C-alpha cells in the first residue's frame, strides 16, 4: 500500500497478471513500478457467511472458484459461469480481484458481481470501503478505484432459498472472449415470482442489470422480457460481432436464461 501511495498513481498492481502482462507485452501499458500483491497473506480464501453468502478474497484464483463446493452449493450460477472463464492455465493464475479491477465489459466475473449484488471491499491508505458492484464499473476497463486502492475481498449476500438461475454465453470457442452473455436469477414464493435479476455482459460499456427486461418479465413474462433486453443493451460493433447481432443475442439469451431460471425456481 505504501508502495502504491509513494508512486503518485503511476504504479500498477500485479495479481494474476493474465490481463496486465499481455498488455505489457503489447506495449499498450507501461508503468515505472509494478506492485506484486501475490505475497499478501489472507487474500486467498472462500469463507461461508451466516446469511448464506460468501466472502471471497481478492487473490482467489479462478480455478479455486470453479472447483469450490461452497460456490457450487450457494451460487450455482457463479459455478456455471466459471466454466466459461478462459482456459485452465489462465484460471490457475487469474484472480477475482484482478478481473473486477480490470473491468472488461465482456468478462464473466464483473457481470456476476453485478448480478449477485456483490459488495466490493477496497483497501487504501485511509482504510477499507465497501463499493456496491452496481457503482463499481464506470467505463470499459475503468472502475471507481483510486490509484492507491486495491480490491481485497468480494462479499456475495446470500440468495433466497427458492431462487432459480440461468447463464448463457456466446463465444466463438469455449474459453474465448464472450461476444455476449446473459444471466438471470428468479425467486419464486408460493407460485409467484417475487424477485428477478437479469445481468448482461458484452452488451454495454460495463456489465449492467437489464432493468427494463426485469420489469417486463414481472408484468408480461419471458417473451416481453426478451424483447425488452434489446433496449437494455447498448452494444458496440467490433470484429467479433456487430451491434445488431449482439442485440439479437441479448434477446435470444435472455429468453433462454429466464426459461432455465424459472424452471429451476419451480423445483
Amino acid at each position: 500500500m505504501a508502495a502504491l501511495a509513494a508512486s503518485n498513481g503511476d504504479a500498477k498492481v500485479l495479481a494474476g497478471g493474465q490481463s496486465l502482462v499481455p498488455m505489457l507485452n503489447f506495449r499498450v501499458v507501461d508503468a515505472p513500478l509494478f506492485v506484486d500483491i501475490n505475497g499478501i497473506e489472507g487474500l486467498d480464501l472462500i469463507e461461508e457467511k451466516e446469511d448464506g453468502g460468501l466472502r471471497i478474497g481478492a487473490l482467489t484464483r479462478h480455478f479455486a472458484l470453479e472447483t469450490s463446493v461452497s460456490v457450487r452449493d450457494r451460487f450455482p450460477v457463479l459455478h456455471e459461469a466459471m466454466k466459461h472463464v478462459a482456459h485452465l492455465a489462465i484460471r490457475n493464475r487469474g484472480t477475482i480481484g484482478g478481473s473486477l479491477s480490470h473491468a472488461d465489459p465482456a468478462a464473466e466475473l464483473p457481470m456476476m458481481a453485478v448480478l449477485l449484488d456483490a459488495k466490493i471491499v477496497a483497501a487504501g491508505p485511509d482504510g477499507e470501503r465497501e463499493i456496491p458492484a452496481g457503482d463499481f464499473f464506470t467505463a470499459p476497463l475503468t472502475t471507481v478505484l483510486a490509484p492507491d486502492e486495491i480490491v481485497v475481498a468480494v462479499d456475495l449476500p446470500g440468495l433466497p432459498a427458492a431462487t432459480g438461475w440461468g447463464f448463457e454465453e456466446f463465444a466463438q470457442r469455449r474459453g474465448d472472449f464472450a461476444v455476449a452473455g446473459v444471466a438471470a436469477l428468479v425467486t419464486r414464493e408460493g407460485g409467484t415470482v417475487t424477485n428477478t435479476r437479469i445481468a448482461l455482459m458484452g452488451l454495454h460499456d460495463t456489465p449492467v442489470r437489464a432493468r427494463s427486461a426485469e420489469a417486463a418479465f414481472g408484468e408480461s413474462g419471458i417473451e416481453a422480457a426478451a424483447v425488452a433486453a434489446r433496449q437494455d443493451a447498448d452494444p458496440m460493433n467490433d470484429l467479433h460481432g456487430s451491434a445488431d447481432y449482439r442485440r439479437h443475442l441479448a434477446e435470444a439469451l435472455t429468453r433462454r436464461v429466464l426459461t432455465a431460471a424459472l424452471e429451476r425456481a419451480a423445483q
Partner: protein
Amino acid sequence: MTAKISITVTVNGTAQAADVEPRLLLADFLRENLDLTGTHVGCEHGICGACTVLMNGDSVRSCLTFAVQADGAEVETVESLGSIDELGPLQQAFREKHALQCGFCTPGMLMTATDMLRKYPLETDDDIRDGLSGNICRCTGYQNIVAAVRSAADKRDGK
C-alpha cells in the same frame, strides 16, 4: 537499467539461482538463461499456449509470468516428461497417435494435458477438447491430439 533481483527457482528438480531483471518473463528465463528451449514462445500474449509450463503443479503461461514471480517455486517444463530414449507415458501416447506434425505447439499441449489429466476426470472427448481449447495448433492436428490425450486418460484410469 533496473536493478537485478536474485531468485532461486527449482526447475525440473534442480535449484537454479540467478540475478534477473524484474521484467524478464519466465519463458525467456527458461529459454535464454537455462537453455531449456523445449518451452516454445508463440504469441507472447497468452493466447497460443505454446509456452505452458507447470508452476507448483499448476499449468501457467510462462509468457504471462515474470521470472521473479517464480522465486521459490517448483517449475516443470516439457524436458521433465521424458527423454528421447525414454518417453513419458503422455509423450508415448502422442507418438503412438501421431499427435504432432511440426511440433511447435507440442510442448504446450503436453504440459496442458499433464495438468488436465491430474485435475479433471475427462469423461468425454468434448471435455478434452474444452481443456485443450487454450492451445493452438496450426497444422490442424487436433483430432490426433485429442486421441492421444484420450489414450493417456484411459491408461490413467486403468482402462
